[in-house]
């Protein structure tokens, strides 16, 4: 099974930067958010970047942007280019095809998140040198890494599920981005609702904001992990050769 997953991963990696508009466009798309978050922001903020919430934002945003753009290709791309029936007619097990495509999304998102965290660290240390090497706060560093990994997994599993159901890559991209936008909108709307609708909403909001960082990180990691598993199980249930060959 592992060898089969690696085979699918090999093919997916080969095709990663060779879709829609060529390699240079794909590389530029990949590098723009990296330059923005890993170089421009650290240059402007200096040491505050390492101690503030920005690296956590990077761990959330980088997978959304990069995995969100590539993972819709996974099945919708195969379907659009008529390569899916031949892949399904091969000896590859269902799980190998599914996990191979998912693993590329996770690996790509996580690797790019680590790269951004590393480049940010180097940028701050070079341009804002304070006589000794500066690091992220220890308790935050693991949170950045965990959130980056789980967020990559979440977008990859959600993306694979959406891609399995979509006829075209464009359709899959639009559907995925619409789904991702829902929690972001909720994050804006819920605090306002708490303040305006619920009588003791201000107190509730204050309690939420004052929550201990470790607790907050643990809750976030727990929610992301649960969503990861949920979407992956849904994708496994959706992957049926007989259904895919007729879609």
């Amino acid at each position, binding site marked *: 099974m592992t*060898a089969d997953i690696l*085979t699918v991963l*090999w093919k997916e990696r*080969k095709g990663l930067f060779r879709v829609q508009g060529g390699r240079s466009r794909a590389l530029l798309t990949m590098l723009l958010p990296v330059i923005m978050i890993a170089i421009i922001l650290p240059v402007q903020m200096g040491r505050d970047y390492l101690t503030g919430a920005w690296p956590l934002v990077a761990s959330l945003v980088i997978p959304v942007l990069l995995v969100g753009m590539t993972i819709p290709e996974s099945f919708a791309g195969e379907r659009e280019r*008529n390569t899916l*029936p*031949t892949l399904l*007619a*091969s000896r590859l097990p269902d799980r190998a095809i599914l996990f191979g495509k998912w693993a590329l999304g996770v690996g790509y998102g996580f690797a790019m998140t680590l790269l951004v965290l590393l480049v940010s660290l180097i940028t701050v240390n070079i341009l804002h040198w304070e006589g000794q090497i500066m690091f992220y706060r220890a308790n935050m560093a693991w949170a950045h890494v965990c959130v980056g990994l789980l967020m990559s997994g979440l977008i990859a599993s959600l993306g694979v599920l959406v891609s399995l159901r979509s006829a075209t890559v464009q359709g899959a991209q639009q559907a995925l981005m619409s789904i991702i936008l829902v929690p972001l909108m909720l994050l804006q709307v819920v605090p306002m609702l708490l303040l305006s609708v619920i009588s003791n909403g201000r107190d509730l909001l204050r309690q939420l904001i004052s929550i201990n960082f470790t607790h907050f990180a643990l809750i976030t990691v727990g929610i992301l992990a649960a969503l990861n598993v949920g979407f992956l199980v849904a994708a496994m249930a959706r992957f049926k050769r007989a259904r895919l060959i*007729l879609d």
Partner: protein
Amino acid sequence: MTTMAIRTENLTRDFASVRALDGLSIEVASGEIFGFLGPNGAGKTTTINLLLGLLEPTAGRAEVLGFDTRAQADQVRERVGALLEHTGLYEQLSAEDNLEFYGRVWRMPRAEREARIQELLTHIGLWDRRKERVGKWSKGMKQKLALTRAMFHRPRLVFLDEPTAGLDVMAAVAVREDLAALAAREGVTVFLTTHNMAEAEKLCQEVAVIRKGQLVATGSPDSLRARMGGPRLEIVGRNFGESALALLRARPEVAAAEAHNAHLTIDLRQETDTAPLVGMLVSAGVQVEEVRRGKASLEEVFVTLMEEEK
């Protein structure tokens, strides 16, 4: 004893209220090229999907290489190759990478993969272009590569779904030649669907004809021709007037006589001495240049079968 590569019994598949395949029972012997003929929408692709275990039958059963396609679909797919309706090639990858991927899929060792890529690409004349992206290739070249991919892992059975459809004459001839050469060289059983009768006639030892999901005839191309069309006389010449045709049609051994430009086709009811017929035509003023004995082509047999069903 002949071993069977494929055996279906009353194989049936419905899509909602539409019966795409209706009680198909066929046998394909190991090592032969079997032609599965039918017009568009006859159920050819559905049959391939059922035999590959990609679809489950509504009724009946099928065995491929001794494995039940419903219960042992994984074992079936482990042992076969397929070139389906589309080439299935990754156009953003090179020819070499396309074959490399499917070599890895079938767990061929690296050295064997490399040797096989060189052997097959050289055989089809595309070795020098192995690094090029397949998306830049002509349709004929892609089809040749896809054919090579289907046979790459040395399967015992290959499914080919209309491998020359949409190709120009030269490309179709090239693909057909490669198919015949590869099949002979690899000793592989080929299940070939096509609606090109000339292709079936040239390549296939056995054929089955389906229409609207139902089997309407099966046998070797020769036996079908013999069954559906009797002996035939073809005459090239001039002055095929109505009086000469009327004389011919009045003869008891003549089933039909049709003239078209410089060709006269006479369908005979049975094998008979044709010299008196030719002599009668000459007496009636026909200038005979050439006389050929023949049989109905597979295409004519096919058309007859389709019309009979109507």
